[in-house]
């Protein structure tokens, strides 16, 4: 879950990390005022979540008047259906030296890792262009962070004297807050050494581990996160919100994540990996999925019924494909009953609306019997995922 930069900076500030002068504004007029206070050129950053806005969301302004007009432009940006959450107006000190720091988890060693460079930028990008300018240190999520790790990292950046001790304090502070707040990624893409010898953080990107959002609730409250704000890259659609409601209202099984696409083949598909594979398979055979879904964890008949109705009611969707990997815990018969019920409740015949039903595995004999009663062909495990997708696409025409 992505933090807005102003939120990330609030966390850093609270933990004594030195930051460049910066203020969040919500109007162009206020931007002008802040720019006047700062004096000299400023940088303005629209507070947005959607990817692809990196370039469009940042502007430089030489004077307060141009800060005002820049802020007006930034506030008009479309952040995946949302308005920007204000604009950060910041001083832009020129420093003697610039660094970047990046905290993440290394899936290979399974440990948290900090990478540092004596260049500004995202470590992920610097890794391609200047791998020799990056140093790394792993640390532990099991034991408390020890300052010497930060010191060794600073040393390997060839820092000495006061620079070494200052950098050690910053890296230690960041490592501790990275662990404390369950961050998944923390990127300081620009850390500058000022003329007076002090360091200041200019640019920050931070992501919260989504699975930790409940236990990090106190911190999120403090930052003013709404309870259901998952910081998706775009605003959820009505269809997606209804899917989430259906999922939340019945604890039996899982049908999320559910996402809306602009195609015409309604997908009632499962589960985690199966849904990814099936969505690819439909596209590979030239089909255009109307949605993404994931039936797993043995959903109830009612949940399958409501998902079916939701997908089939979507404008532009005439038929649905019901497909899954070979299921182990989800019962094929319950899915069959839910789908049939959903279709009949909408006043249609199941045989007219189901492009294919391929859910092999647990309780498959019962599923086959139910479908037979309604004249729907049941595809068993001998029909591959690719073949099922091909037939569905062919039938929808």
């Amino acid at each position, binding site marked *: 879950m*992505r933090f807005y930069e102003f939120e990330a900076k609030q966390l850093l500030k609270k933990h004594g990390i030195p930051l460049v002068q910066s203020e969040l504004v919500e109007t162009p007029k206020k931007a002008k005022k802040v720019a006047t206070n700062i004096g000299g050129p400023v940088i303005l950053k629209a507070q947005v979540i*959607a*990817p*692809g806005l990196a370039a469009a969301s940042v502007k430089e302004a030489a004077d307060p008047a141009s800060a005002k007009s820049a802020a007006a432009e930034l506030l008009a940006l479309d952040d995946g259906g949302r308005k920007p959450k204000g604009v950060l107006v910041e001083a832009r000190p020129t420093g003697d030296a610039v660094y970047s720091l990046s905290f993440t*988890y*290394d*899936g*290979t060693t*399974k*440990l*948290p890792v900090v990478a540092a460079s004596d260049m500004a930028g995202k470590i*992920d990008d610097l890794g*391609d262009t200047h791998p020799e300018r990056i140093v790394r240190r792993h640390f*532990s*999520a*099991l034991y408390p962070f020890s300052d010497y790790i930060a010191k060794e990292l600073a040393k390997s950046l060839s820092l000495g004297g006061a620079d070494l001790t200052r950098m050690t304090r910053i890296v230690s502070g960041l490592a501790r807050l990275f*662990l404390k707040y*369950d961050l*998944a*990624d923390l990127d300081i893409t620009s850390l500058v050494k000022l003329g007076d010898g002090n360091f200041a953080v200019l640019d920050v990107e931070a992501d919260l*581990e*989504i*699975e*930790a959002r409940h*236990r990090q609730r106190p911190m999120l409250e403090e930052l003013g996160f709404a309870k259901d704000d998952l910081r*998706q*890259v775009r605003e959820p659609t009505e269809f997606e919100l209804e899917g989430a409601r259906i999922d939340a209202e019945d604890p039996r099984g899982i049908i999320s*994540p559910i*996402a809306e696409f602009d195609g015409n083949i309604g997908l009632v598909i*499962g*589960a*985690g*990996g*199966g*849904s*990814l*594979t099936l*969505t*690819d*398979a439909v*596209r*590979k055979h030239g089909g255009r999925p109307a949605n*993404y879904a*994931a039936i797993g964890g043995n959903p109830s008949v009612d949940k399958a019924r409501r998902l079916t109705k939701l997908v089939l009611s979507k404008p532009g969707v005439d038929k649905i494909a019901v497909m*899954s*990997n*070979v*299921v*182990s*815990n989800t019962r094929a018969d319950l899915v069959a009953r839910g789908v049939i019920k959903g279709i009949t409740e909408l006043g249609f015949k199941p045989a007219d609306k189901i492009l294919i039903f391929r859910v*092999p*595995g*647990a309780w*498959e004999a019962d599923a086959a019997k139910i479908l037979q009663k309604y004249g729907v062909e049941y595809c068993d*495990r*001998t029909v*591959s*995922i*690719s*073949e099922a997708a091909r037939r569905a696409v062919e039938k929808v025409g």
Partner: protein
Amino acid sequence: MAVIVHEDFQFIVQGITGREALNFTRECLQYGSKIIGGVTPGKGGREVYGVPVYDTVREITQKQRVDGTVITVPLAFAPDAAYEAIDAGIKEVIIITEGIPRKDASAIVEYAALHGARVIGPNCLGIIVPDVCRFGSLGGPAVDCRKAFKPGVVGVMSRSGGMTTEICNALTLSGLGVSTAISIGGDPVIGSTYADLIPLFEADEDTKAVVVYSEPGGTAEAELARWTQEHHSRLPIVAFVAGRFMDEMPGMSFGHAGTVVNKKVDSPADKMRRMREAGISVAEEIGDIPGLVRARIGN
């Protein structure tokens, strides 16, 4: 021969009285696995399908050899359950529990490594050696499990539990069969990656080829590609990468917790390129996997 488990493999189930655990305990017993005890605090003295339930892991390890544990306790108790098992000397730890933050997963795995224990998962379903041992909840009811997993020559590692069964089913239908199948888990930090486990398949004489199922997110595929290039593996590897549509949707998350395209290495296109460069065959569709395996092992 088999990977990790064997005919006499004895394990316990932590959280055995939970709904999901009750199901897979029954399924494992029907499959012929040796479950010698279960743990649920406060429920010691009960029985689950003839398996004695204890309050602590140590009550079991003090009396009997315990080769492994399957942890399926609620989220908030999962790290504690893992530490309890590791401190009691258990060396093979499967964590089924979903939704464990990566910080906790990292701490558990580090603790395990310090004590010579191996973690599979979290957010996985476990291991099956067809007709020998089932260690975890992979494959569902024993009757379905036997349909999808027949003994054979292909080792399987998968980030998705459901797709482990799907792929094993395809290999079984094709007559190639499965040597050992491991659902490794779909989280960003897991105890055992492809590269950690492939040496075990390398040493397993029943395994003639390995199939891996992968998803967007993480460095596991790049790591496997590097391992393959550095070790001149005798095993041909066939990989399938799901979620290619996600390349067009940066930042969106589908499927498992680890499934997101934020960094370059996360993208299916990048994973496929790295694996192809390392000599790994990349299947376009699940249905192509058996044919690619046959072509690679000359069968």
